[in-house]
């Protein structure tokens, strides 16, 4: 099935196709149907490329190519390993789902500048794939910056005062941390080791001792420099980015941008430092506790948010730090848990965001306090939300259960019992702030205001549904089903990711 083109060629095309999609969308400016058609076709072709790569990597290959050597010894080149292949398939697959949702949402809200919206999306997905397939830190950095810049017009899409303010925080923090901290980290790695290439087992081990101060400096620069991982205190860009239209929040701030960040942290931990090397020194502990703090603190903040998107944003900040935590545990189970969390959380959180978008499109409601009884007229939307929330919390039989489980094993392996408590407490907090939403929607009543939820409590009014347009409801249902399916596929994904834990 996948023998039509070589994996190397597929890497090339996976990056080139979105660029052609970008041009196609630009040319189809005046014809919305053709424009969205181009987006979907581009998405399907890109997904096919990502699948080809995924299969090849699963067979033990390392597809990739060198694009250009821009400075002596520093090149733009690509080499795919299991983690990147997984991220690539996640990004390109969910892009299609999100494009369907965008069609419903953007047409439903009669947004302006829709062509620019889809163009920027195509570039963003190209950048995300570039990050996934990067063979060295330089390539990673270049695509990281392209991702920041291409998503900026999306975040500020509404062009009102709130968008400008949110956009400036977004761009300021992401550009600032990347140029101010990540770039020095990359250069310091380059000077210390003479390479920036990702290699299994790490590249630092051969140059410096594990408890050398330079290792701590590097780790801190990387952990805070990759601002997209939203470790506290550099997380404010994420809640601020919620001024964007919901499809942007759904895809970029649940999948592409934030996952590019934690993917970067995980990749640096595994392929630059090396798990064994990290576990020998004490540098990782500091970042690990900051991640643990972020998990709890942002869960607490999430509880106090009445705006649904803001609550989901803080929930994302919290969930992202699970990945950072997994990387910093410096055990193989921790890394595996982090890798799984990237995929599982993406699917779950995207469901939640798309549901929030569907609610907004139909009712223009943003505040959770106004959603009482809404579940009885939008049962499909809130049903999907319920499944997504359960998955994020980590209840079986939903996908989110596995990473939590693995992270707990990892914490125990690393000998940090306190972390077990942190993870358990966080799950309880998740239950409170996520499950309260569908609970409110299904079981509470707004006493007949607005004419919704007026029926008998706890009874869905099947004859009187007020669901959002088809294209807004179908995508979250798809991802909710995905949450269930991924629970049963977790074993295969575990086996697939196993090579990242084989040191040397």
């Amino acid at each position, binding site marked *: 099935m996948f023998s039509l083109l070589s994996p190397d060629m597929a890497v090339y095309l996976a990056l080139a196709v979105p660029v052609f999609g970008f041009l196609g969308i630009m040319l189809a400016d005046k014809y919305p149907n053709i424009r969205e058609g181009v987006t979907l076709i581009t998405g399907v072709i890109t997904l096919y490329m990502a699948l080809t790569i995924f299969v090849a990597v699963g067979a033990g290959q390392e597809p990739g190519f060198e694009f*250009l050597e*821009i400075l002596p010894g520093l090149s733009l080149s690509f080499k795919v390993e299991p983690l990147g292949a997984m991220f690539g398939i996640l990004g390109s697959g969910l892009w299609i789902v999100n494009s369907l949702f965008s069609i419903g949402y953007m047409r439903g809200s009669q947004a302006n500048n829709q062509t620019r919206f889809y163009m920027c999306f195509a570039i963003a997905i190209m950048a995300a794939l570039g990050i996934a397939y990067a063979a060295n830190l330089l390539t990673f950095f*270049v695509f990281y910056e392209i991702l920041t810049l291409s998503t900026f017009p999306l975040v500020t899409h509404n062009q009102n005062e709130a968008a400008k303010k949110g956009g400036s925080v977004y761009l*300021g923090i992401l550009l600032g941390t990347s*140029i101010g*901290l990540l770039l020095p980290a990359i250069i310091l790695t*380059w*000077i210390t080791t003479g390479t920036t290439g990702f290699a299994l087992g790490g590249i630092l081990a051969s140059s410096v001792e594990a408890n050398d101060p330079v290792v701590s400096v590097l780790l801190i620069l990387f952990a805070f420099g990759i601002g997209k991982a939203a470790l506290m205190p550099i997380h404010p860009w994420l809640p601020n980015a919620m001024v964007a239209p919901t499809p942007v929040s759904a895809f970029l701030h649940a999948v592409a941008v934030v996952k590019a960040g934690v993917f970067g942290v995980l990749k640096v931990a595994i392929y630059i430092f090396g798990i064994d090397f990290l576990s020998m020194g004490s540098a990782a502990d500091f970042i690990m506790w900051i991640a643990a703090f972020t998990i709890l603190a942002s869960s607490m903040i999430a509880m106090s948010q009445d705006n649904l998107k803001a609550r989901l944003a803080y929930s994302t900040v919290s969930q992202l730090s699970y990945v950072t935590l997994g990387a910093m545990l410096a055990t193989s189970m921790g890394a595996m848990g982090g890798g799984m969390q990237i995929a599982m959380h993406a699917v779950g959180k995207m469901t939640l965001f798309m549901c929030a978008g569907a609610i907004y499109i139909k009712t223009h409601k943003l505040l959770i306090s106004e959603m009482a009884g809404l579940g009885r007229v939008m049962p499909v939307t809130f049903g999907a939300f319920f499944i997504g929330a359960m998955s994020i919390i980590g209840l079986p039989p939903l996908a989110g259960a596995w990473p939590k489980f693995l992270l707990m094993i990892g914490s125990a392996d690393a000998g940090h019992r306190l972390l077990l408590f942190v993870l358990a407490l966080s799950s309880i907090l998740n239950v409170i702030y996520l499950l309260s939403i569908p609970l409110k929607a299904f079981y509470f009543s707004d006493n007949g205001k607005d004419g919704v939820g007026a029926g008998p409590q706890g009874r869905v009014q099947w004859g009187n549904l007020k669901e959002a347009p088809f294209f807004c409801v179908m995508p979250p249902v798809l991802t909710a089903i995905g949450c269930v399916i991924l629970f049963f596929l977790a074993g295969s994904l575990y086996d697939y990711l196993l090579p990242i834990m084989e040191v040397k």
Partner: protein
Amino acid sequence: MIHFPGLEHLPALPVIIPLIAAPFTIVMRPGRTPWLWATLVSWVTFACTLLLLEVVWHGGPTEYKMGGWAAPLGITYYIDLANALVMMLVAAMAAVVFPYAYFSVKSEIARAQSPAFYTAMIICLTGLLGVAATGDAFNVFVFLEISSLSTYALVAMGARRDRRALTAAFNYLVMGTIGATFYVIGLGLLYQATGTLNMLDLHERLAGQDNKVVEAGFAFIVTGIGLKLAMVPLHLWLPNAYGFAPSAVTAFLAATATKVQIYLMVRFIYTVFGFEFPFLEVALNAFLILGIVGMFYASFVAVFRDNVKQMLAYSSVAQIGYMLLGISFGTVDGLTASFVHIFNHALIKAALFMGVGCVVLRIGSSQLTAFRGLARRMPWTTWALVLSGLSLIGVPPTVGFISKFKLMEAAFQTTTLIPPLLVVLLIGASSLLAAVYVGRLIYTMVLEQPPENAPAIKEAPHAMRVALWIMVIANIYFFFFTDLTVGVATQAAEALMCSQAGCGGAY
């Protein structure tokens, strides 16, 4: 290589051609003719400098004796990779800015003045190329004044649009003359100590000399050039001069004038004085401190400027800080980073000022408010400004990234007064200030709405847009292909620093 007749005169040609061409310009009929002539001259000169760079790159440094007179008596042009690169850069900027200038000059300068304007531009080009080419320290002074005097006149020509150009030009004249005087005083002291003005001779005879006369000469020369290149406490002339000069002049000067002075500073520090000179360390430490102060102070001022030309002018002062920082490391890597940034910053600032020039032409103002909603009104200009602005911050894939990378790489490998990691973080932090003021500009252009009663305007003329976009594309091209910039700069830095016993470090 093909042998052209007269190729042996190649090192002199880039200076001689514009020098001879300039007087003809003044007698031309006002209007299009002087512009066409100036453009032609700039292209021919550019071709010569390219050829020269090619020759020096493959054949090593060349020497040219003016009128056949040998070194201590006559004037010698001594061209190695460092000059060849700077000369090529200056001529390239002229070759792009001169064609661009026509419409901008037509609207900003009286028609009757146009022959004088282009004459002054060509003379300025001559002077800058002469400073870069010559191997004679006094000849440097002559060309320095040739370029400076024509620059004063060019800045003053901005008076038709804004009378404040006159005071800016006068201020520049006074400061520039003080700088030149300091330079000559310093040179006089060196002449007294050595009896020669040829740079290579000076180096030989200065070896082992460490007395008050030489030290005073060194201090006068460094301060004089520091004034000319707008090193931080001596930068006060620059923002107004750049802010009120005609747009084409600003674009040309910002890309070339200070760059040549930086080159001159490097030439004096490494070729004339050299590492054996014990007083050098004082200057390098001063560069380190002043460079960092400049990076922050000027960027900070730029953030609060409401006139885009002045904002970019302050940004230039800040960027000079990066170049001084590179020099102050006293390593081959540091000097390479400086040369790379000289080249890249010329591309960046030329593009930015040319973009602003397009706006001034169409809207008639360079105030930030004039840029509101520009993305709808002048999309080509806007996106050119956005891309070159990102290059100024140092975002890949633009040349600014290469500059930042090389500079941070060099900073990590030095031992200076300040810990390397701190220097690197300071470089990063000052880039953020650049992000703030560039961000302000981009915000105004892209996210704000045009004024309610704004008249419909056309995009800038094709000639300007093409020139502008050539610069923008160069900003991206030289990210991917760094042979010319990093390759030549590394060799040039090695040649400058490894002349005597191995590659030395100042510390």
